[in-house]
């Protein structure tokens, strides 16, 4: 009966929590330290359909562990049955990369993000007051809330969900093992890695697929500083540019810019792009190779990247060979982390699946 004695039991700092050195610095908010209880509570909430008005949709409906916390759909579908505007984003290594959440960056913290889908009419359509009352009526929840945060409240729900998501670290893919010097990549994967990591430069005979111009070398996600992790990757022409980041910043130069996602587990997270328009990695590679549409906010690095040096003539194409594209896809498959998609600590605590 936590809380009945009038003293708040103190939460246990999360032990054994670590991340690869090459991921770089990370910050946990001072007002939401990682604790065992907060993470356990967050995990339960993440998998609990009571978070939706209908009692049928949980966070895990659109963020399925075996799909690296995506849902396999073009765009997600929640309680309303109406397809949402955006593709479900993978939840991995969220403490690194852009600290602006959603495809257009509209939430500045994971805590702020957490409550938005719960209340969104098409996603979970839940009333926060009703949700708090429901959870407070459940003794096991009440005790966890009491220990973790001293209260059952919307803020505590947000903090717990954020805490669980911060522990979703994917760091045992074959690429990670390669970075740790434990394995070597085969020749095809290694060619793909080199192409991924290079911006092409015909002057020095360097072939590249310029993936790294937006996807950082170790995290394979967007850059964290300011809005460096947002880019217009040429999906739409000028006339069809969506607001993207400009909806948040009001800056017209940000039209059509979307968050650069992590490519961790990318082989599992299709369909691809913010609107799920591409089904396969082959289609994604073909887009970057010869499907890029020009617009005033297209990344200069995409517009200029060309392995034949003809970009200045107004044509945009990487001019990759089919063998090179296959090699890049082989490298992308080294980003799959079986431990991450099967780890029990990330799984549904109610069913154990």
């Amino acid at each position: 009966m936590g809380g009945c004695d009038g003293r708040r039991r103190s939460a246990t700092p999360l032990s054994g929590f670590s991340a690869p050195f090459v991921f770089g610095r990370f910050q946990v908010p001072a007002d939401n330290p990682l604790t065992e209880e907060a993470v356990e509570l967050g995990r339960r909430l993440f998998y609990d359909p009571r978070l939706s008005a209908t009692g049928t949709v949980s966070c895990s409906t659109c963020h399925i562990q075996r799909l690296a916390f995506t849902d396999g759909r073009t765009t997600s579908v929640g309680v309303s049955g109406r397809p949402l505007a955006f593709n479900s984003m993978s939840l991995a290594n969220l403490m690194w990369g852009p600290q602006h959440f959603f495809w257009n960056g509209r939430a500045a913290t994971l805590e702020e993000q957490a409550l938005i889908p719960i209340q969104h009419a098409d996603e979970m359509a839940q009333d926060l007051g009703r949700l708090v009352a429901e959870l407070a009526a459940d003794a096991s929840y009440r005790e966890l809330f009491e220990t973790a945060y001293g209260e059952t409240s919307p803020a505590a729900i947000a903090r717990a969900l954020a805490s669980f998501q911060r522990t979703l670290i994917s760091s045992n893919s074959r690429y990670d093992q390669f970075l740790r010097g434990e394995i070597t990549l085969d020749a095809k994967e290694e060619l793909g890695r080199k192409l991924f990591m290079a911006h092409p430069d015909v002057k020095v005979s360097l072939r590249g697929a310029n993936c790294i111009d937006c996807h950082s070398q170790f995290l394979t996600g967007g850059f964290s500083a300011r809005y460096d992790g947002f880019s217009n990757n040429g999906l739409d022409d000028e006339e069809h540019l969506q607001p993207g980041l400009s909806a948040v910043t009001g800056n017209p130069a940000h039209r059509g810019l979307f968050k650069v996602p992590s490519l961790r587990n990318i082989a599992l997270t299709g369909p691809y792009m913010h609107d799920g328009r591409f089904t396969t990695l082959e289609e994604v590679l073909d887009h970057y190779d010869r499907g890029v549409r020009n617009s005033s906010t297209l990344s200069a690095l995409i517009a200029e990247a060309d392995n034949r040096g003809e970009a200045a003539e107004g044509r945009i194409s990487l001019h990759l060979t089919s063998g090179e594209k296959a090699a890049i896809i082989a490298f992308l498959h080294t980003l799959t982390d079986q431990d991450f998609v099967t780890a029990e600590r990330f799984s549904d605590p109610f069913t154990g699946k």
Partner: protein
Amino acid sequence: MRKATFLKPVLLAVVAALGVTGWLLYRAAQPVELALYFHPFVGPEPLVFNESRYPNPGGEGRFKVRDFQFFLSNIRLVGATGAYVEPDSYHLVRFDGAEPAFVIVLHDVPRRDYEGIEFGIGVDAAANRSLTPRGDLDPNGRMAWTWEVGYKFVLFEGALVRGNASDPLVYHVGFDENYRLVSTELHGEPLDSRTSRLDFRVDILRLFQGSATVDMAALPDVKFDRADAARLARNFAAMVTPMRSDAVGQPERAR
């Protein structure tokens, strides 16, 4: 009695003098904060992003700046009585924030008569080969090439507009040999509240104009070609120059 009354004001004066001296000594020993302001220009004009308004220095057309950032590192203040060395001194200078200027604040600077300030443009060889995040260095950041190549020192991305045609401009300049040290005299002004701010002009045009003038149509991108990178690096050594504080604000007003 007479003696005592005569001594009293003398003692008071001595105590007061000691107090003032002590306070002055104490104050002199207190470190100060020194703010370095960097103001972006393209030639005589203050930088405005995303407007094709600046003439191509070596040829036809006008260029626009989409993104511009550079590393300024290893800041030192040097004087006859000692130097101040900023720890983990790696700053990513950029002008896309809310403020027109980029500000670096040096903390705990001993109050001395410094004769000069010194800093690098780019990243020194040791840090350029390291994966340790120090200051603004981030191996997963936009300025990182790969761990095999190191960091971009100066990043310029934009477009050259000629008639109806707009062609991308990409200048990423790095490599150990292009790290440049810049030193500037401080004219022996002691650090006090009046000089706890120094102003610098960052002239982006200097990248393309100087020891070599660049026609952006002929050279629209610089990345891994070492000769091209060296050309721009010889130019960018003169990119950051001291600016009189009383001149600050005029360009902003003109805007």
